[in-house]
């Protein structure tokens, strides 16, 4: 890759992912509207929402940490984004492996947690408390599935894992080669994306949208932008680990939308867990699945 193309990519990459995020968000709302027998909003409704929020005349915040946290939220997500390889752009992936990515993903969570903490609203604090407990819930099985994959391929680099899967064709896809890990990670992904039944963080009827309670105007706008970037980002992680990555953008988009449809279909027909049941579900269902998968891999290696 030439320097120029890298620079172009650095600028274009977040924008492209944002556009994909808008489409995914619009698709989600359209899809859920159809399930609910509605027409639903426009396909680029998230884009209108973001514009509306960013153009609010008055914005209030509870202090400097509230301001900075929003930057940490978006900055951390963009940082993570660069390390996740997509077709055509994997320049930064060589500097950090999956372990780095999984830890970088914590920066936005921490940023949001700090900002919401400063708003001094118990709804927000409960939301954050739930978010962090859910983090402990879904990250454990998710990371174990990764450990399994990494141990099998003897690398922690995402690029290598994609390479192995693409070299082996369809039968080398993570989901096919180690289905237990794939399913465990899929359940964890549902929690990671905060979709029902694991949607305990926002829970409007319980804690009035939790972390978003005191967020308005451009603060909420930046949270929306972050969400629109984070959704394709987390889906891409799963695609790269278990669906064989993607060699071109068409394949990538198809996989994104198929995976996303699967997740939001589940979202549509379930209520939400209590937070402890959600964490328990992850630990009792997803984690043993992943552990079994890992033991299988260990036995194969030995």
């Amino acid at each position, binding site marked *: 890759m030439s320097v120029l193309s890298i620079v172009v990519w650095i600028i274009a990459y*977040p924008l492209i992912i944002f556009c994909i995020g808008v489409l995914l968000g619009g698709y989600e709302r359209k899809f859920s509207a159809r399930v609910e027998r509605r027409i639903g909003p426009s396909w680029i409704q998230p884009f209108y929402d973001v514009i509306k929020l*960013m*153009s*609010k*005349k*008055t*914005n*209030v*915040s*509870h*202090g*400097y*940490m509230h301001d900075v946290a929003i*930057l940490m*939220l*978006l*900055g951390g997500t*963009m*940082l993570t984004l*660069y*390390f996740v390889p997509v077709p055509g752009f994997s320049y930064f992936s060589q*500097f*950090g*492996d999956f*372990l*780095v990515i999984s*830890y*970088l993903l*914590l920066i936005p969570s*921490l940023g949001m*947690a*700090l900002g919401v903490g*400063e708003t*001094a*609203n118990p709804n927000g604090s*409960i939301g*954050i*408390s739930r978010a*962090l407990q859910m*983090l*402990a819930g879904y*990250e*454990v099985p998710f*990371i*174990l599935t990764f*450990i399994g994959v*990494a*141990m099998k391929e003897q690398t*922690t*680099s995402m690029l290598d894992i994609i390479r192995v899967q693409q070299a082996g064709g369809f039968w080398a896809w993570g989901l096919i080669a180690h289905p237990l890990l794939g399913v465990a990670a899929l359940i964890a992904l549902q929690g990671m994306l905060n979709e029902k039944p694991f949607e305990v963080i926002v829970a409007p009827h319980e804690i009035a949208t939790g972390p978003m*309670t*005191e967020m308005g*105007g*451009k603060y909420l*706008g*930046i949270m929306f932008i972050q969400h629109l970037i984070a959704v394709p980002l987390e889906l891409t992680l799963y695609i790269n680990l278990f669906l064989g990555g993607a060699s071109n953008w068409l394949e990538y988009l198809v996989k994104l939308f198929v995976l996303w449809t699967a997740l939001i279909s589940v979202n549509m027909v379930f209520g939400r867990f*209590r937070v402890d049941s959600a*964490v328990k579900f992850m630990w009792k269902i997803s984690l043993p699945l992943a*552990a079994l998968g890992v033991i299988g891999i260990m036995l194969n*290696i030995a």
Partner: protein
Amino acid sequence: MLTSMLLILPLAGFLTSLAAAWIVPASSKARASGAVQKIIAGIGFAALFVFAFLAKSEIGTGYLGIPLFGLWLNFGLTQLSWYFVAMVAGISLVTVLFSLQGLRDDGRYPFYYIWLFSKTFGMLGVLLSADMLTFFIMWEVMSWCTYFLLQQGHEKAKRAGAGYLVYAVTAGMILLAGLLYVYFNVGSFDFRTIQKAFSGFGAGRIIVAMLLVLVPMLIEAAAYPVHWWLPSAYANAETGISAYLAAISTRIGIYGMTMFLFAGFGLTALNLVTANKYVSANEVLMIIGAFTMVVPTFTALFQHDAKELMTWHSIGQGGYMIVGIASSTTLGIAGGLFHVFNHMTYVSLILFSIAAVEYRTGTTNLNKLGGLIKKQPVAYLGLLFGIIGLAGIPPMNGFVSKWLIYRALILSGHPFIALAAFIATLGTILSVYKLIHNMFLGQLPERYNDIKEVGWGMRLPIIFMMAVVWLTGAFPGTVLAVVADIQQSLGLERVAYSVHGVAAEMGQLNMLVINIVFIGGLFVSWLIYLAGGKRKHIGQYDNYAAGHFLDKSIPYNYNYNFYAGMEHIFERLLHKPPVKRAEQALATFVSGTSEYVCRIFTGNITTYSAYVVAAVVVILLVLGGGR
């Protein structure tokens, strides 16, 4: 002889400040006495710091023998011990600088600096000792100094100190047994002779000897089943002392473990005799380490006191070091040793921030604090940097060492130990967020409206440690260079490092790129932020309360029982009768023994000193007789 200065300086500092305390007693003129003590401590520890760094040139050559009752106490500097010596010198200087202002001149801790000197002396003695006898004697000195350090302050601290002593004496006895066992088998105390002799021994002897020396080290490092002494002891000490102890004192156990495993007896020898298909010696250690990581971290989740929460983490972080070093892979050992340094920086930083809050509010109870970010922003930032390091989130330094350990564990085929490490990290994130939330975020209680930030004397050490935590995160190569030298000196493969991370042949990690991209991301976010409209800061009562009006009479802050969901999950475990009963029995045992110990040591310092001297003399006579 720079090495000798490392022993002489703290000893001289101890004697000088003791004399000064005698001349200007604390009871008469608290302020004047405090000032004298501060001057001596400041100069002493600054000099120690300088000498510790100058002594680097003497690694492997500096040697010192002191005759004592016909025996020789041998001291020398190795690459491994220099690493720890430098850390001791550095962190003790920062602690003292912090304490200059952080310790109020109200005469509550009259012997603070005196015991700090003696403790430093004990630790340096252990680190510098070049044979097993010296190691043991200095070990005892160090334990007793720790005890005296913990004895300061109020009743609870005394109790906790006594509890520590029970464990320390046990550890000392086991170590003594190990010493005698080795001596009667080999006929020498010298490490190199022992190593040579042991390579020819059978499995039984190696295992017994290893057990006898490793168990005391694990007790000192507060590894899982024998960690009970640490939380109450450290949490009840003065916060500056907690910082010092948690940062480095416990890690002497890690030093001893590394030394005995790789320089003393040799892990390879141990692994050879214990190797079978299912489990090897280092895996046993790794399992201990895994428990040490997970259990205390989740215990920390349910603590209600900032210092106690942090001391549980201090135990938990020790587990990473044990796991890393016990993995006996290049990356793992590098990660484990690097983690000692990282842990020292951020734990002291966190405890300094807690101390700054305690200095103003007089409490570290997490249910009494809140919203202090508006009042103590520097302490907040210190805590923030510290917890990012502690949780191992980039770009702080804790991430690098944890990354090394994870990678080592995954690639060496220990997925479940790696999972344990990851679970512990998640537990850490949960509990440190509770820490920062309950202290600094949420609603500011009315009573803290008059609080101001602490003075520059306390702010500067916090800012300095923040810089260290961040810069060693961005340029981990600076410390990894020393770690690589240690690995080389122990006859292991050097970790392949670059200035800003880990080199490509060991899996590339470039912290500088992460930092730059992160700052770039922040910058772009800032531009987006600026594109929005103006913003206004509002007060904490202008808040969403479902349409209700808030004021100071309405408690509107969620901090008690912060992870209620987790509490529901672990409900059975926390309140299960048998566990509770066992816990109670243990508590009665500990408090009973500590009371017994208290009854023996009720006198003043001279009595304590007499005990120390007597113990040392008895040991020496026994050994001298043996020869």
